C-alpha cells in the first residue's frame, strides 16, 4: 500500500498552497499550484513523452484550468468553445494508443479499430455533457445551495474514487487524485461556510474534468468497474438535482448539508463495496498469513499480504524457529 503519511502530506501540502487562493481572484492558479506541489511531494512527475494515461492526464490539467481562467478574458462564445474543446479531449487523450483503440493485428481506420471508434463516439461527449448539466444545475436555475455544496461533493467523489482505484491495485492512479482533492478542498470549504460568490465561480472544467479523467484512468487501466465509475460520475449530478418542493427549498444551508451528507453516504457505500471486493480478492493471502500465525514454527512476521503484492513488509526480528512444545505429561 502507498505510504499513508506521504499521501496525507501531499494532500495537506496541496490544501495549504491552495488555501490563500480561496479568498482571492487568483484561486484557480493557486489551486493548480497546490496540486503541482502535492504531486511533487509524492514525487509524481509527468513523463516525457507522455506514454501512459496518467502522464497525459497530468499534462491535461493546466489545459483544463486554462479553460476556466479564460472565462474572465475571452468573450462568452469563445470561452464556451474553449471549454467544450477541453472537455472533449479527456477520452481520446486518456485512451490514446492503448489496446482500447488499437490492436496490432486488427483492421483499423486511421489507426483506430472500429470498436475503438465506437468507444470514442460513445464516451467523448460525456465529460462535456456532465459539465453542461452541472453548470445548468448550479447557475442556470440560480441555486446557491447547489453551488455552495458542489465543490465539496466533487472533492469527496475525487477522494473516494482515488481510494477505490488504489484498493483495485492501481496505487499511482489513486495517488494522483490526492493533491487534486487537496487543492480543491479550501475553495470547497469556503463555499460551504461563507457561501458561493458570483465573482468567484467554481472552476468547473478543472474540477469536473479531473474527476472524469481519473474515472477513465481507473476504468480503462485500473480495476474500477463500470458501475463504480458511473456512480462516482453520477453522484455530483444526482446531489445537484433540485429537491422536492417544500423540502428545505428555502433554507440554503440545510439544503447544502443534505446534499453533502447524501454525497458522503453514497461515496461511503461505494468505498464499502470496494473494500469488500478487496477483502475477497486478498482472502487467500490473508488466510495464508493466518495459517502462518497459527503454525508452531512461527517464522518471519512480515506482512505476508503486502509482501506478496510487492509492498514493503513490516520490519521484524529475524527468522526464529520455535519447536512445538510437547504436551505436558505428569511425571511418573
Amino acid at each position, binding site marked *: 500500500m502507498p505510504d499513508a503519511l506521504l499521501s496525507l502530506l501531499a494532500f495537506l501540502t496541496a490544501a495549504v498552497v491552495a488555501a490563500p487562493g480561496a479568498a482571492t481572484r487568483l484561486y484557480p492558479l493557486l489551486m493548480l499550484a497546490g496540486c503541482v506541489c502535492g504531486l511533487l511531494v509524492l514525487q509524481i512527475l509527468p513523463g516525457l513523452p507522455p506514454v501512459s494515461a496518467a502522464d497525459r492526464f497530468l499534462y491535461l490539467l493546466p489545459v483544463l484550468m486554462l479553460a476556466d481562467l479564460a472565462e474572465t478574458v475571452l468573450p462568452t462564445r469563445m470561452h464556451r468553445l474553449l471549454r467544450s474543446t477541453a472537455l472533449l479531449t479527456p477520452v481520446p487523450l486518456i485512451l490514446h494508443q492503448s489496446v482500447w483503440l488499437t490492436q496490432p493485428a486488427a483492421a483499423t481506420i486511421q489507426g483506430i479499430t472500429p470498436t475503438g471508434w465506437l468507444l470514442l463516439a460513445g464516451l467523448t461527449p460525456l465529460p462535456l455533457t456532465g459539465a453542461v448539466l452541472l453548470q445548468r444545475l448550479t447557475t442556470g436555475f440560480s441555486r446557491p445551495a447547489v453551488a455552495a455544496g458542489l465543490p465539496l461533493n466533487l472533492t469527496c467523489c475525487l477522494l473516494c474514487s482515488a481510494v477505490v482505484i488504489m484498493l483495485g491495485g492501481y496505487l499511482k492512479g489513486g495517488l494522483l487524485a490526492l493533491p487534486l482533492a487537496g487543492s480543491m478542498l479550501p475553495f470547497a470549504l469556503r463555499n460551504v461556510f461563507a457561501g458561493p460568490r458570483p465573482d468567484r465561480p467554481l472552476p468547473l472544467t478543472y474540477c469536473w474534468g479531473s474527476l472524469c479523467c481519473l474515472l477513465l484512468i481507473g476504468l480503462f487501466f485500473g480495476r474500477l468497474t463500470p458501475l463504480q465509475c458511473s456512480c462516482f460520475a453520477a453522484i455530483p449530478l444526482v446531489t445537484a438535482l433540485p429537491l422536492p418542493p417544500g423540502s428545505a427549498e428555502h433554507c440554503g444551508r440545510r439544503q447544502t448539508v443534505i446534499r453533502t451528507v447524501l454525497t458522503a453516504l453514497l461515496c461511503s457505500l461505494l468505498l464499502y463495496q470496494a473494500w469488500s471486493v478487496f477483502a475477497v480478492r*486478498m482472502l487467500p493471502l490473508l488466510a495464508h498469513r493466518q495459517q502462518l500465525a497459527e503454525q508452531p514454527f512461527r517464522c518471519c512476521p512480515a506482512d505476508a499480504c503486502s509482501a506478496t503484492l510487492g509492498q514493503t513488509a513490516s520490519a521484524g526480528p529475524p527468522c526464529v524457529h520455535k519447536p512445538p512444545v510437547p504436551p505436558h505429561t505428569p511425571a511418573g
Partner: protein
Amino acid sequence: MSVSQALLSLALCTATLLPVSASAAEEYVYDAVHSSVSFKARHLDISWIHGRFNEVDGKFSIDRQDPTKSSFQLTIKADSVDTANAARDEHLRQPDYFDTKQFPTIEFRSTKVRAIEGGYEVTGDFTMHGTTRSITIQLMGGRQIESRGVRRVGFSTELRLKRSDYNFDKNAIGPIGDEAVVIIDCEGMSK
C-alpha cells in the same frame, strides 16, 4: 528463338534463382509447447520471485553460412504474466507495473547477429513498457535436429534488465528489486 536468346534467358533465370539457392536461411516459428519465457526478481533483497509469460510468439531465420543474415523476433503478451498468484498477477498487469492495456506486448527484434562459440551473439531492440533499448544477448545452442518430419532448433539465453531503464514506476521498484533476470528457453519449428 535463337541460341543467343536461349542462352540469355538461361542466364537470366540462373541469375534470378542464384540468390535463393545461395541464401541458406532456415525459417522457424516459435514452438510455444516446448519453450518458455520466465523471469525472476529479488523480493526485499532476501529471495527471488519467479514468474513466466504464458503467451509468446516469435520467428527466427538462421543462415548457417552467413550468420549475419540471421534474424530473431520475439513477441511476449504482457497480459499473460503468471506468478502463480492471481492477485499479484492482476497487480502486475496494472499501470504500476506492466500497464498491459497501454503496452500490451514486450518485443525483441534483432538488428545484428554474429556467430560465437556455441551460439550467436544477437544485438537487437528490446521494447518493454513503451521504451525501446538496444541490448545484446548471447543465444546459446542452435543445434538442429529433425523429429517426425519437422526440423527443430533450440536456443537458451539469460538476460538481466533494469526496470528503471524501461520507465517503470520508481515507487513500485523499491520492495521488488530493480533488476530482473529473464530466462528464455525456446524451440523453433521449421515452417
